[in-house]
């Protein structure tokens, strides 16, 4: 893999009030790779993701996507940046009062001057990509949870972004549906070369899709491991890392050791 950094995180700190969630987080995401951010519940994965996409402004640190600071004050740069990435939120975050087609069309209407007919054809194509052909006129409430996430993915991909972010794509899905979604993610990554940052704690997903992982820890307030998940599982010297990959709670491991 050619190592061109697409996302650069430097010395990032996240704070809510007086609570420091993590501090001094630095890593890079390279072009075309699938990077998984993992860690136990409440360790700040979602918080990190929301910083990466510029929803939260960090007290210290810097995040560049394709060389543009996500907290840039220039409206023009931000607009360009937001065309460059898409986000699939944990709940899908489809707009409930709009049909799937309207949901997917929204970014197209905002960012392009395409005619309604052209937008319609792009929407149809995107829905087809996520195997939702024919569901244009359904409302989000009329389809299942897995389909909602796929529709959310279609909306995130509407502008063919170079980076896609996912928050817990498999949360709330049954194992089969979640494997289907993982395979879809892999197919898009392979087909379009999209760089992907995925937050999850599902081991199965991690081994299935991740090229590289970044592991956060709540008490360490930062990154405790980075690298190939299979490598980490076998060779990490850190007990917290191996116990996560081997599905063993830390205390049990300590007692038996």
């Amino acid at each position, binding site marked *: 893999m050619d190592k061109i950094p697409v996302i650069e995180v430097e010395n990032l700190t996240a704070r809510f009030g007086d609570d420091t969630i993590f501090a001094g987080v630095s890593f890079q995401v390279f072009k075309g790779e699938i990077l998984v951010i993992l860690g136990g519940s409440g360790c700040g994965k979602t918080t990190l993701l929301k910083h990466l996409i510029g929803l939260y402004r960090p007290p210290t640190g810097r995040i560049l996507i394709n060389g543009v600071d996500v907290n840039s004050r220039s409206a023009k740069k*931000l607009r360009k940046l*937001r065309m460059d990435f898409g986000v699939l*939120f*944990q709940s899908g975050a489809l*707009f*409930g009062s709009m049909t799937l087609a309207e949901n997917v069309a929204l970014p197209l209407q905002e960012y392009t001057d395409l005619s309604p007919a052209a937008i319609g054809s792009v929407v149809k194509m995107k829905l087809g990509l996520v195997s939702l052909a024919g569901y244009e006129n359904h409302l989000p409430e009329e389809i299942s949870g897995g389909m909602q996430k796929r529709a959310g993915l279609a909306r995130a991909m509407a502008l063919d972004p170079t980076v896609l972010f996912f928050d817990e794509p498999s949360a709330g899905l049954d194992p089969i549906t979640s494997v289907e979604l993982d395979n879809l993610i892999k197919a898009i990554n392979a087909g379009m070369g999209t760089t992907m940052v995925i937050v999850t704690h599902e081991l199965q997903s991690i081994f299935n899709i991740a090229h590289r992982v970044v592991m956060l820890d709540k008490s360490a307030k930062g990154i405790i491991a980075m690298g190939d998940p299979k490598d980490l599982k076998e060779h990490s010297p850190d007990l917290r890392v191996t116990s996560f990959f081997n599905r063993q709670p830390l205390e049990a491991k300590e007692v038996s050791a």
Partner: protein
Amino acid sequence: MKPAKKLPAQHAIGVKGEPGQEITLTLSGRLALDNLSALQAELQSRLEQLRPAGLTVDLAGLEYLDSAGALALIQLQGESQARAIPCRLLNLSEEARRILDLIDPETLTRPPLIPEERVTGFMDQLGEASIRFASDLVQVITFLGDLLTSLWYVLLHPRSVRWGDVLFYMKRAGVDGLPIIGLIGLLLGLILAFMSSLQLKQFGANIYVASLLAVAMVQELGPIMTAILVAGRSGSAFAAEIGTMKVNEEVDALVTMGFDPVRFLAIPKVLASMLVVPLLTVYATLFGLLGGLIIGVLGLDLTVYSYVTESQRAIELFDILSSLVKSVVFALLVAGIGCQRGFQVRGGAEAVGSATTSAVVAGIFLIIVTDSAFALVLHYIR
């Protein structure tokens, strides 16, 4: 196992040995939640009376043990330990051992963690509430500022407005509200005219019912009542809608797609309200006047003609215009606070509920405060 003496569901404690010496307590029967307090008290008093040098608890006669019974045993062990009395359990069955093993004695004595913010004293609560009120006020003012900036932008770029949404909310806030607003306007007019007619009749001043009602409805009651109804019907709905979108991360999705959530979500609602509330106010006022007319004609033997001319004489164009301006401001406030409360939502469904309540309460509060300000200002302008 011994047959139970009186009640089958009871425990029994036997003592072997002399006070101050090695003591064996035989616990038999049922050690369970329902007799926990008796058991705890008895064991405690035995321990204090006998002051044993060593304690053996024989559980051979145990028939039933649940976690509460096990708790009593562990507490007994703890008490003994505290008095430096060696204590051991004898003839413990395998099942009982498993229950005992589940309970970690250390967790029983661990001091409770101190939750982050606990406000107890009256003064503390007062201070807390004041700070919250102040920061809330700052947030509301900031949001209204944002809203006005966006409205200004929209005025300059009318094509950026989602007019489809505006029409939708005009229907929701306006058309759908017509029946209830008309009904309440009518009833208010009837009641007000009836009550004042009782007083005015005594002076033979029947005809003044018309002017009294006209002034009251046009200047105050029409705009206020309509705004309060809109706060209840639409302000709350706006808060709930935006709050739910916040919870579902839809607002976050909007931001990452490059939309300004205020312009996208709040402006259509606020614009629709500002367009529709003045119309509703006129409508409510007309129904109020109709109520007065009904009382005047049926109850006070006034003619329709004299009632209407008297009403007309009481109201000036200035009153009507100022009432319309007032209603536009009320609409801005009520819809704005509804949206602001929605955007404030953090967490889950419960937060949406309190945002809804707060939208109505704060909306009505703002209406009253602003109305007082208007009363003062209009008095001097006139």
